[in-house]
């Protein structure tokens, strides 16, 4: 083991590098902190204030009450939770079933099917043919349109298959001798051994569902079916906040529209932010597994 001797230049480099990293952290975090501070601020004071915010101005929860009293937000939450739970469940079931078949070595048709699947990673029908298909299947304006067409992500399925393949064949052989069928082998042997990978992939799917808005935008018309992100888009990007400022005094409603927007962002992002420190390392692991197999 060589002991590195540090020259004065090394110390200067370390210092500059550390400062740069701190700067990058501030740049990354500050927009979120600004949103948090703004959402907690008094609307009139916030409007009068210019420049960066380092703390909430006369902190209060008025904007949050306005957001939580908006029925659309609650509807959005309900729909999004349905999509995340049912969608991720279907994703995992289909992905496991597919990955299990593709991890088998025996069946003759495995290779042709694998090719058929790989091809779809490079060519796809595009926006309109997919839209017409969803409509022809009768899924237009239903939440199924956001769940079924994306039931399998080929990339995730290939990661899962790689995991399944790494399980020693001898384990499976002995199970078969004991009379286990395909389902028993998948559910009693392979899945319990792959729980970390399944957790990673489940999280990939769940966060994807939580954050997705575009499919909802093209497939849903009925406002009662809108997921949270679509409601959020109307409020934050298109600035449709009128129905939430009704309670506020005239003149106050303009000021309130700003803090309400920021409070909405927080309300819609908080579940991710709470889970983030825990799920982050699993995601990193997922990227690693994916990159190894490339």
């Amino acid at each position, binding site marked *: 083991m060589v002991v590195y001797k540090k020259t004065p230049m090394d110390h200067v480099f370390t210092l500059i590098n550390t400062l740069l990293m701190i700067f990058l952290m501030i740049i990354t975090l500050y927009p979120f902190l600004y949103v948090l501070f703004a959402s907690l601020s008094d609307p009139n004071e916030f409007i009068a204030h210019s420049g960066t915010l380092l703390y909430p101005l006369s902190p209060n929860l008025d904007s949050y009450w306005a957001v939580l009293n908006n029925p659309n937000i609650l509807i959005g939450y309900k729909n999004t939770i349905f999509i995340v739970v049912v969608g991720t469940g279907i994703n995992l079931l289909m992905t496991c079933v597919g990955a299990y078949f593709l991890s088998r070595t025996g069946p003759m048709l495995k290779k042709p099917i694998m090719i058929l699947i790989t091809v779809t990673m490079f060519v796809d029908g595009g926006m309109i043919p*997919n839209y017409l298909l969803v409509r022809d299947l009768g899924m237009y304006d239903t939440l199924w349109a956001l769940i*079924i067409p994306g039931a399998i992500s080929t990339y995730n399925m290939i990661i899962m298959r790689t995991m399944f393949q790494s399980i020693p064949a001898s384990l499976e052989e002995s199970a078969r001798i004991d009379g286990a069928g395909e389902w028993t082998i998948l559910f009693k042997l392979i899945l319990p051994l792959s729980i970390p990978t399944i957790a990673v992939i489940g999280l990939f799917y769940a966060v994807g569902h939580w954050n997705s808005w575009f499919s909802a935008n093209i497939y849903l018309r009925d406002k009662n079916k809108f997921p949270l992100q679509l409601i959020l888009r109307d409020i934050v990007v298109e600035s449709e906040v009128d129905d939430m400022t009704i309670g506020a005094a005239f003149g106050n409603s303009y000021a309130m529209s700003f803090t309400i927007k920021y409070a909405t962002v927080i309300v819609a992002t908080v579940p991710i932010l709470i889970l983030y420190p825990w799920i982050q390392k699993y995601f990193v692991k997922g990227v690693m597994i994916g990159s190894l197999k490339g």
Partner: protein
Amino acid sequence: MAQVAKKTFWQRLKLDLYRYRYLYLFFALPLLLYYIVFKYVPLYGLQIAFKDYRITRTIWECPWVGFEHFQDFFSSIYFFRTLKNTLIISCLNLVFGFPAPIIFALLLNEVQNSKFKKIVQTVTYLPHFVSTVVICGLIVSFSAKDGLFNDIIELFGGTRSDLLMSKEAFRPIYIASGIWSGFGWGSIIYLSALSSVDQEQYEAAYIDGAKRFQRMIYITLPGILPTIVIKLIMEVGSLMSVGHEKILLLYSPLTYEVADVISTYVYRKGLVDNDYSYSTAVGLFNSVINIILLVFTNTVSRRLTDTSLW
């Protein structure tokens, strides 16, 4: 064994289907059905690019029109505009966005305190988990005339303006926000490549008198070069595909001239104007170019560096 070899292909297939019947029935069948219905049926549906599709008729019944929709697109002002915007945004992204995670990974790799390193990683990966809608919502709010960006511009003596409405500011905002939300997450793949660089090389170089910066350039960088090349192939291969989600949330008729890319045009034509056939033709044109680009860059890379996607 000799007998097995004598069996014809169909006999072997029949035996195989019988032997693995449960596997085929419960596993392969749902998998195949999914891929046929949701991946191959849309490919079949691509033919409406060459037809005059009306919603009242099935795809079969619609008359063929050949390359009419393609010709319409090539002769419209949108062809040049969307092509130009797509390429400019991609190239800006390649020049500014592509190196950012690499430089960040190299610098982060030089951080010796592993606890501090973890904190930096945790913080910089965060924007990846925040939805596009939220990120664009922040951009919209901050770019507004009374928003944070303008507060800062005014602080430095500039004048306030609605930044997202400005043709000059749209692309810089789009690119910079992309770098902001992606540099941390994008660095993971390089950091994982860095961790496999042989430590003995560093020690040997140190003994030979290589300075820290030289070690970074001559050992670390070559160590992650294959990863960089693979990423570069994918990036160049997708030069013609700028995603529609973020642009749809940020642009407006005032900025179409600089912001409208092929994918957003496909969306507007197809799902706002309901011009299905024309929109599909534009999308198909884009996909064909994408595939050609990917095959081309992959071939070049295989010749030059022995690195290839397949």
